[in-house]
């Protein structure tokens, strides 16, 4: 049996169906960029594909190209919208930041991904079960700390903390009954990272 080898950059690029990816990127960008011209959508599509090439160059072939595509579409669309709304000098390039994050150590990426998933589950759970907790869960999903949220909303930190504590108790109940898997899971062992 032939040994499995890592494809070269050119081989990796050749394995992707660029026509399908381009069509998919354009469809998703058109949905996100309503109000922008066809030229803007075409330019953004080109940016997504260029970022995808950049990803393959730095990280190799993605495990799920369709997932990578949606990640980049979201970031590039946010860039396009942000570019219209703000001064370019202060404009955060989400797509650049996202690509940079893919180069971070695996444990950092893993925690960030789990944070996204946890925040999403918490927010959706409260949308279904406890509407009063939604604003706090929404703040957490935006990466805001309770202290920041208290300062922004003009409420006392203690008040916010107590409210959040009551909310997360519901989450703990769901976790204890194994209906939600959010934390307290053992991450995969990674060799040579930390002894």
């Amino acid at each position, binding site marked *: 049996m032939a040994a499995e080898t890592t494809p070269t950059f050119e081989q990796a690029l050749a394995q992707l*169906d660029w026509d*399908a*990816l381009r069509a*998919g990127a354009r*469809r*998703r960008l058109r*949905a996100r960029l309503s109000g922008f011209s066809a030229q803007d959508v075409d330019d953004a599509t080109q940016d997504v594909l260029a970022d995808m090439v950049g990803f393959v160059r730095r990280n190799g072939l993605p495990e*799920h*190209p*369709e*997932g990578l*595509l*949606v*990640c980049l579409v*979201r*970031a590039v669309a*946010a860039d396009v919208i*942000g570019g219209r709304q703000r001064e370019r000098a202060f404009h955060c390039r*989400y797509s650049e*930041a996202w690509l940079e*994050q893919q180069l971070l*150590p695996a*444990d*950092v990426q*893993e*925690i*960030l991904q*789990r*944070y*996204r*998933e*946890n*925040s*999403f*589950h*918490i927010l*959706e*759970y409260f949308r*279904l079960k406890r509407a009063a907790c939604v604003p706090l869960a*929404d703040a*957490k*999903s935006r*990466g805001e*700390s*309770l202290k920041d949220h208290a300062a922004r909303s003009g409420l006392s930190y203690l008040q916010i903390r107590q409210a*959040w*504590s009551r909310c*997360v108790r519901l989450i*703990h109940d*769901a976790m204890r009954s194994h*209906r*939600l*898997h*959010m*934390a*307290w899971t053992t991450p995969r*062992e*990674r060799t040579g990272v*930390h*002894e």
Partner: protein
Amino acid sequence: MSDAHLRFRGVAAAHLAEALPDEEAAWMESHAAGCAHCARLLERVRPLLPTLPYEAGHAPVSLLERWVWTPEEMTPLERALLEHHLAECPLCRDDALEMARLAGIQRTAPRRTAARQVPRPAIVTIVLREPLLGSTSESVALALIPVPKIVLEFHAPFLSLYTKQPATRQPTTEPLALTLIGPDGTPVRTGVRTGSSPEEPFRLPVPPMGWAPGLYRLEVATIDGNRRSYLFRLIASR
């Protein structure tokens, strides 16, 4: 890697989300105080959190991938939460379906059903036709909308009771007594309207519990006893 480090890494995201029970959060703080590596790990993630807002509120792509490729690994609640979101958020739903299409996997995502739409307040304008000469009441087909805060607005011309001289057909300017009789036969509202002002509609205050569906009767009477009544039905929408 020791169990303590694994435990720290496993709950770091929940710790950053401030979603840990107090005793677990205290353990995290205490471990980080004594372990530079774990403390550094946390400090590397924390500044990245402000980059999240552009996709906050949307389903993370990692969950969409799981939904496309290995939905059986999700708990029923996790799958329900995601599918509830997909039903409500067309962007995420179409992202998920696009991913499934590109992966060559058949998936269907739920859409929000019409039954779950939130009713919005509305004004119903009721235009009642003048009854035929000699009759005292007329049935008028009405409408619709089941909303709790529906406003009933009666268009003015029908309130103009004609004078007793049919030849002149001039609207009366005398005060009008208005009584709305509810489906159970009891007066819901009474009021007086002075003179006729065709341009100005007559609005009834909304009862505290909203309007109940059923057959109503609006009675309009002049001070000299000239009286007409109008029947209409409020129908709850489906």
